[in-house]
């Protein structure tokens, strides 16, 4: 009787699910400990009201952007810790059992899932929120409340994917969870369910954000800024979100079908009753390939801005850059089979997708040449952002070349699922997306804080990263070429491969030192900030985000600028027009709203409840979300007015402060 009541309330959750082996238990306790410490600190400093009003309920994209970055950085550290464990295991190669097989599989699954969904996606949404509105001369995004919901759904997913460290286990099926391994028969536990719902919930957030930024860029550009006058970064984001909008629904369906198989016993991907596991692989990659372009296109855009600014020259070949971005976006929907050349398709299908894969490398090559031509005859300064760009050119190009190698189906039969593949995609994602993120961080940090990052520490961080990265992944190309399969926790010592694994392990340690330098850089720069204050435009930039104060006011622009050329801000500076006293207008800004965080909270509850089969809680959480949405959307006064007088006062104060800094 009592047992039945427990089962009704707690589903399949039992006390045993809290017990973990030492490393996992340590990580879980550490995570909970950090959370509790943070809560105690906020309480002790009496900052709950400030936290709630200034950050958690804010609809200001600048605040939301910072929150995305904070979550992504925390997840980067967790993903990196997973990477360290993987490499350590491979270096030890079974001489000491660091991780048992099941644990190892959970770790590489967590590593990939976290890096793609919670670091990659989080960073790009953070950058979109911070930069896009001001770059197009707007104050906000098209749908500020939806923006908040997107972030909190992302945060909910992040919490769900970290829950396995405390209760239950994670998936052992890799970052894409192919069935039948991820089906009910071979993964009956909660691991794959955690994976499904973390991704499903944050995926909905991503989709909504995609729509949000698309409408923002289409509808909210400053007067005179036609599409072909937009900064290249804005173009890259427009293409990235177009991909998000049309690719993420495929992921939603695929995860949904797997959940139906696991939770309601259906037969989409089962081995019996007519299911077809290959359909999962097909669908998930139809999403998965656009996904990698979603991540990398903004990185291309970031580098375009950085190269132009630090070469003091406009980007070479603007039109061809735009055409290349559009071409890459469209083509990214025509190559997905190259992820499963070996799954049994005939030569005709493999050939078609192989050729399309080779074709998509061409516009990317055009972009690389255009960046280099931008530097030619420019006045180049090698500040940290430019160093990251040079690192990107080296690593991403190598990765791209190996990609073209694998695009030949016959060759792919050797490389598929080997360490060669692993090295290739790390070259692309780390060299492309992550280096782009680090470059963006170094470039735009002064804008949002008002002070610069320490250059020397930044350079140290870069060099440790690039040398470490090359040492960590070049050996993997060699190993993969010789036949080493991915995702194995040990390799036969008689192969003679151990030396290469040790070199790779050493490389990862250098990367670790690079990470330490990055953390040190931030801490040190904050400590020494008073000596490094900057004004609006520390890099002599070319685009509108540099026209505001550092940090910008909530309303960003007191008056919306009018645009007549590309690189509009740069041209305005060159023309040295005498600025007449601007006429200030009333500005309407969105009020704060707690509905975003509440929806996120209930979404997290919903996901966790489905995982543990607590059906009553699933229904309650779902109804709560619906009710919150209806209540929030029924509010007809979501904005408040900042009067023209207040704007004028704020602008005057900012002008005086700026004069103070430059004196």
């Amino acid at each position: 009787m009592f047992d039945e009541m427990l089962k009704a309330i707690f589903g399949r959750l039992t006390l045993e699910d809290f017990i973990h082996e030492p490393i996992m238990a340590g990580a879980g306790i550490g995570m909970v400990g950090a959370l509790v410490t943070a809560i105690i600190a906020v309480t002790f400093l009496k900052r709950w009201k400030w936290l709630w009003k200034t950050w958690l309920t804010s609809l200001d994209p600048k605040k939301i952007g910072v929150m995305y970055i904070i979550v992504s950085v925390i997840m980067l550290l967790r993903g990196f810790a997973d990477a360290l464990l993987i490499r350590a295991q491979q270096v030890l190669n079974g001489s000491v059992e660091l991780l048992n097989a099941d644990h190892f599989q959970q770790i590489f699954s967590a590593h990939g899932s976290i890096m793609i969904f919670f670091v990659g996606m989080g960073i790009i949404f953070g950058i979109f929120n911070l930069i896009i509105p001001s770059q197009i001369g707007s104050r906000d995004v098209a749908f500020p409340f939806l923006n908040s919901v997107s972030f909190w759904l992302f945060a909910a997913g992040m919490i769900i994917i970290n829950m396995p460290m405390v209760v239950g286990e994670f998936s052992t099926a890799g970052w894409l969870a192919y069935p039948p391994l991820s089906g009910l028969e071979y993964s009956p536990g909660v691991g794959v369910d955690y994976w499904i719902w973390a991704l499903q919930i944050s995926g909905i957030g991503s989709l909504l954000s995609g729509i949000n930024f698309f409408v923002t860029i289409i509808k909210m550009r400053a007067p005179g800024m036609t599409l072909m006058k937009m900064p290249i970064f804005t173009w890259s984001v427009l293409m990235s979100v177009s991909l998000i909008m049309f690719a993420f629904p495929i992921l939603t369906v695929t995860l949904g079908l797997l959940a139906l198989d696991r939770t309601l016993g259906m037969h989409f991907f089962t081995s019996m009753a007519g299911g077809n596991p290959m359909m999962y692989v097909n669908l998930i990659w139809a999403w998965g390939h656009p996904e990698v372009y979603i991540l990398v296109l903004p990185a291309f855009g970031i580098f375009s801005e950085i190269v132009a600014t630090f070469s003091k020259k406009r980007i070479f070949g603007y039109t061809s850059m735009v055409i290349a971005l559009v071409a890459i976006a469209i083509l990214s929907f025509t190559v997905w089979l190259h992820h499963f050349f070996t799954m049994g398709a005939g030569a005709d299908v493999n050939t078609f997708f192989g050729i399309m894969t080779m074709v998509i490398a061409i516009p990317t090559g055009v972009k690389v040449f255009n960046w280099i031509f931008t530097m030619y005859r420019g006045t180049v300064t090698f500040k940290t952002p430019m160093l990251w760009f040079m690192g990107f050119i080296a690593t991403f190009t190598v990765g791209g070349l190996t990609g073209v190698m694998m695009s030949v189906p016959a060759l792919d039969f050797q490389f598929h699922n080997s360490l060669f593949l692993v090295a290739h995609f790390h070259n692309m994602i780390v060299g492309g997306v992550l280096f782009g993120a680090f470059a963006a961080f170094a470039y735009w940090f002064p804008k949002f804080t008002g002070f610069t990052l320490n250059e020397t520490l930044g350079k140290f961080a870069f060099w440790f990263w690039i040398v470490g990265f090359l040492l960590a992944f070049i050996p993997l190309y060699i190993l993969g070429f010789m036949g080493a399969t991915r995702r194995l926790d040990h390799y036969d010592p008689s192969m003679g491969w151990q030396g290469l694994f040790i070199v790779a392990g050493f490389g990862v340690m250098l990367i670790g030192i690079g990470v330490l330098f990055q953390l040190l850089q931030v801490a040190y720069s904050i400590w020494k900030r008073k000596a490094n204050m900057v004004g609006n435009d520390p890099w002599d930039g070319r685009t509108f985000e540099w026209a505001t104060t550092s940090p910008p006011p909530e309303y960003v622009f007191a008056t919306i600028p009018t645009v007549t050329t590309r690189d509009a801000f740069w041209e305005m500076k060159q023309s040295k027009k005498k600025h007449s006293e601007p006429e200030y207008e009333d500005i309407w800004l969105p009020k704060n709203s707690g509905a975003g965080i509440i929806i996120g909270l209930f979404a997290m509850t919903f996901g966790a409840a489905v995982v543990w089969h607590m059906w009553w809680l699933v229904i309650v959480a779902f109804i709560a979300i619906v009710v919150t949405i209806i209540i929030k959307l029924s509010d007809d006064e979501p904005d408040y007015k900042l009067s023209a007088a207040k704007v004028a006062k704020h602008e005057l104060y900012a002008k005086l402060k700026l004069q103070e800094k430059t004196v």
Partner: protein
Amino acid sequence: MKKPQLDHHHSQVKYISYFVGFALSIVTTLLAYFFVVNELLPKEMLIYVVMAIAVVQLIVQLVFFLHLGRGNRWKVATFAFAVIVVLVVVIGSLWIMHNLDYNMMNMTPDQMTQYMNENEGI
């Protein structure tokens, strides 16, 4: 951004649009239904005819109910891209999944299950 017009343009939409759309939709639905139920054509042709009629009704509803094409070029552009993605996903998946059976001797799922049972012990 362009200054929006304050007068509502949707009073230009006429009642006739919905009546025509409704009538055409009923006709196309009945047409497809009778073709199939009375097996007026061999199966392969029938599939294409039903598909074609469905596309016709899609266009009817887009024009007469959803008023696509009137004004907003971004609605048309996003619709066009959506159609491309839909076709790629559906046709691509069908082509790929059919082709994956290429090396499996074109068996039906039930034959495949039987083969796996007998020859692979699964």
